[in-house]
């Protein structure tokens, strides 16, 4: 029996009998990267692009009081503002995590990307605030402020971590289990929050300053696409893509 069949059997039987699907998928993601090739035929792969519009009253963003941390305050000459709900100038919503929630063949095992994801602490703000990562992929946690940050992950499915970074330095961690989302926080600076979406596959994206997202290299099929926002919650849409198709979807979030 090949490895992926064993994994699939484990996952399916686990889901059916014990309801611990998350744990089952974690194992597949933890397979060594070198042994796994990208399992999708890229010549017939599809692309989903989309935007997340914001409808409603544009939220007022509170100014962050950084007076207790002069170094960080100095990095924001025009003031620092909360990013809990960032509506772009074109009426779209930033910091929305988008990912394929359902529809992928359970037998697909994706290689762990070699490139690391970096979260930087600069000006006592996390950059980026919302992002995705694959199970097993390296997360580099960088302190560029030269003062004490602790970065604490408060997951429910993964193991937690809480790392002290009293000076400029970079520390690496990985996640073992898919989880939407893992909150990251700094307890020294209570306004510092970030959220990382952990998936077993590379089909995730985060909206930026234009509110758009793109998910590439999908095998043809029907998928449940979910968007997640820290304040406005989640929405899903069914999307069907054929071979080599590019499809556009639109979400609207009401504030």
């Amino acid at each position, binding site marked *: 029996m090949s490895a992926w069949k064993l994994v699939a059997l484990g996952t399916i039987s686990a889901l059916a009998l014990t309801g611990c699907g998350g744990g089952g998928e974690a194992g597949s993601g933890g397979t060594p990267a070198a042994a796994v090739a990208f399992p999708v035929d890229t010549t017939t792969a599809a692309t989903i692009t989309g935007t997340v519009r914001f409808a409603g009253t544009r939220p007022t963003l509170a100014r962050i009081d950084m007076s207790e941390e002069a170094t960080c305050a100095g990095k924001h000459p025009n003031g620092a503002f909360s990013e809990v709900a960032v509506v772009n100038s074109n009426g779209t919503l930033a910091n929305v995590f988008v990912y394929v929630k359902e529809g992928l063949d359970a037998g697909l095992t994706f290689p762990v990307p070699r490139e690391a994801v970096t979260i930087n602490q600069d000006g006592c703000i996390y950059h980026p605030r919302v992002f995705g990562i694959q199970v097993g992929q390296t997360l580099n946690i960088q302190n560029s402020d030269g003062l004490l940050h602790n970065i604490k992950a408060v997951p429910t499915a993964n193991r937690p971590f809480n790392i002290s970074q009293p*000076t400029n330095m970079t520390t690496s961690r990985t996640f073992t289990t898919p989880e939407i989302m893992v909150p990251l926080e700094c307890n020294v600076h209570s306004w510092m929050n970030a959220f990382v979406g952990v998936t077993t596959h590379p089909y995730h994206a985060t909206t930026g300053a234009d509110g758009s997202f793109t998910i590439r290299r999908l095998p043809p099929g029907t998928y449940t696409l979910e968007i997640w926002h820290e304040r406005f919650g989640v929405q899903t849409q069914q999307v069907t893509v054929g071979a080599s198709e590019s499809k556009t979807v639109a979400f609207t979030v009401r504030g």
Partner: protein
Amino acid sequence: MSTERRAVGSGQWAVGVRGATAYCLLATAAFALVALRPSAQTQQPAADDRGRAVYVKWCAGCHGDQGRGDGPAARHLLPRPRDFTRAVYQIRTTANGELPRGADLRRVVDDGMPGTSMPGWRATLSGQDREAVVRYVRSFSTAFAGTEPAALDFGGDPGGAQAAIDSGRALYRGIECWKCHGDAGRGDGPSAPRLEDDWNFPIRAANLTENWLFNGGGDVQDIYRRLLTGLDGTPMPSFTSTVEGGQYTFADLWRIAHYVRSLSPEDPPRPADVVRAALVAALPAAPDDSAWAAVDRFWVPLAGQVIVRPRWFAPTVSGVWVQAVHDGGSLVLRVSWTDPSESPDSTWNPWRSRVATHMAHDDSAAAADPAPRPDRVVVQFPMRVPTGMDRPYFLAGSPDEAVYLWQWESAPRAAVEATARGLDAVSPLAAASDSLRAAAVYDRGEWRVQFTRSLTTADSTDRLQFATGRAIPMALFAWDGSNGEAGTRGAVGSWISIYLAEPGGAGTFVWPLVMTLATAGLVLVVIRRAQHAARAAGTAGQSTIRTPDTAEAV
């Protein structure tokens, strides 16, 4: 462990397969086998029946039937009881984020968590029961299904005595421990008012001057371990990353541990039964008078007021240090205690509102009151020096028998005298020329309040007349306004005594002083005569009599 609890060939399966997928296979197999052979469940689980029985009887009241930390008592407690379903534990010998070892959990069950409501169970439960309940507690999370993580190698304490403490102080500043724990270690750092645990309950930065309340132990070794492992589930991070990254060394972390240890007394203080007020020639003039350094201090532990409703289970003040002296005319008492906020302090508003939110329920609905409150300390005495063993009710007296109080508040910063016939029946006394005087200093998380009152006063009806050579009942209470404490919600202590040394009694201050002065005078006379004699003998300038030596010889 979960695999043990399921009790289906766990040994073979656990060794043969790894990872979360493996767990699912195992669980599936276990489920299937259990479903097919119900007797499998009943063959081996005696230990778990025992663990469950112990848990239900002794633990579920706080930790909840399902281990979610939500038992009936939980809502009264801060910090809240542990939620076992998340498998996140503070006290471990394993790396940050790892599961605890069985021995780590056993230590907490054995010794308790001193800064919390969790008691040690050594005296209550047998070793087998404690082991069984540790197994049962682990069964609340599937995370324990795998192999037990390895304990870290903590190495040995390189020592270094005072030099380690001094450099540890610089490191404490350098890695910014003070951001939460405060410059003097009293849990009053700028980030302290907003700290939360992983369940979003407010949590204190540890007061590093009370190491007997440290979770996981107060030795240098214990502190070092906490620096390496962090306290998972709390804001306290692991500093191992700073060694792995090359910014600091393990030796540096040992130095910090030595410094932190040096902030607490050598031994945990013994609760005082009697506060002794020595007789002195000159009374200290202010709370920070250097004379206080030479006065014995007595530790008076306090606890939440849980008798009169609304009760209070989450007081800030764990106890007060009391010092006292008198000069035959006046009694001076200094009360010092840790309170991370100089209330009312708006920077602690987030703390106060969160405590109010989480402690608001039927019993103390008033706790939701967000109004800023001052800090307060009360020194309580009976109305008269008792002749027998009878004392008024310890909690501010009773309708039948009043008590006499000194009540100091931080805003406006002043003290009043009062009589009380219960916590809700306090009557301030009119000021008089010989009224109580008070002065206070707030220094980096500590209040030091000095009370001065003449032993006797013109008003002897409502004011206690102090007597020397007698044990006079005394009790102390403290409130932290920034913790939402006021009225019946505060920290209280039971009756102890204060004893004012008698003038002229053996062992008091006066006679040694008189004898010292007399001896010194005699020495001077002897010296003068000797010098005079020497000069008279015409040997001035070649005197063999050197005064310091002579004085020492005498």
